[in-house]
């Protein structure tokens, strides 16, 4: 199953997005990497690496990010992983992206299919 990692400056945002997605896709492999070890606001490269490793089953991992250093820290985390072929940061809204990708991944879709659904998440109209 494709893994999903939620990277936010805020522990609560990452946990909250994951909680919401789990409600719709309880089997999805999601990990939250929000905030710093000491509870401060920020992003932490080692926390992101651990999160990626915890959800990776070999089918690829997508990373949802909030903004700023969430992108840079995720890029660094990917570079530090031994196999970087199937780990991708997606430019999508963090909450919607987490939900869409969790549902898609939990029905057994491929990495490319999950990435494609996430491209749609960016254009998704709420009303």
């Amino acid at each position, binding site marked *: 199953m494709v893994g999903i990692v939620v990277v936010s400056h805020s522990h609560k945002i990452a946990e909250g997005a994951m909680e919401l997605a789990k409600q719709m896709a309880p089997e999805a492999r999601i990990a939250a990497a929000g905030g*710093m070890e000491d509870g*401060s606001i*920020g*992003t*932490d*490269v080692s926390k992101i690496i651990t999160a990626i490793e915890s959800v990776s089953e070999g089918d690829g991992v997508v990373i949802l990010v909030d903004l700023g*250093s969430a992108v*840079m*820290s995720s890029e*660094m985390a990917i570079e530090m992983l031994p196999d970087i072929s199937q780990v991708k940061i997606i430019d999508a809204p963090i909450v919607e992206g987490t939900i869409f990708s969790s549902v898609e991944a939990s029905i057994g879709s491929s990495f490319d299919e999950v990435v494609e659904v996430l491209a749609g998440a960016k254009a998704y109209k709420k009303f």
Partner: protein
Amino acid sequence: MATKAEVLDFIRIYADKMAEHRQELTDLDQAIGDGDHGINMSRGFKAVIEKLPTVYDKNIDDILKAVGMTLVSTVGGASGPLYGTAFMKAGAAVKGKEELSDEDLILAFEEAVGGIQLRGKAVEGEKTILDSMIPAINAIKASIAAGKSMTEALVEAEAAAWDGVEYTKSIIATKGRASYLGERSIGHQDPGATSMAYAFQAANEVAAKAGN
């Protein structure tokens, strides 16, 4: 040139500066960003100082790498990956060295600035770290090429870095959180360029003390 003791000294002095200027950097960041630069940098370098004793007996490249690794997991903001990348790239450039020649130092600086540019996808003139770092490195290269010592070169590097900081007041931010402000960012001094200028100030102080 720089010995391992001087490299360690530089890290300690820079860490002190980040603690000392914590409020100043935070105030600068509050004006145009998210107001955490001083807090982030001082937290990161406090963690570096705690980590440092575990790498005292390692080569310079391992020490620089350990600094970078610590920063990317403890700074929290964009300066974490940026400064972290700079230290890691500098380390990789001087692999296996126990002492750095002037050429090694220039290479380390160039790799560090190249790493920041790639990581931040930024160029000079966008009101970032680069606006003090690039002029400082250019000053070092010009001074060494003119036959001056590294100690003399670092005096000029620090001056060029502060000129760069001054220059950031006149330009619009197009990168990072400050870019949301657009023209309203004019008149404000960039916090990242400022924290980087303190790095050249620290290097200058270490070189002046060592006298080489």
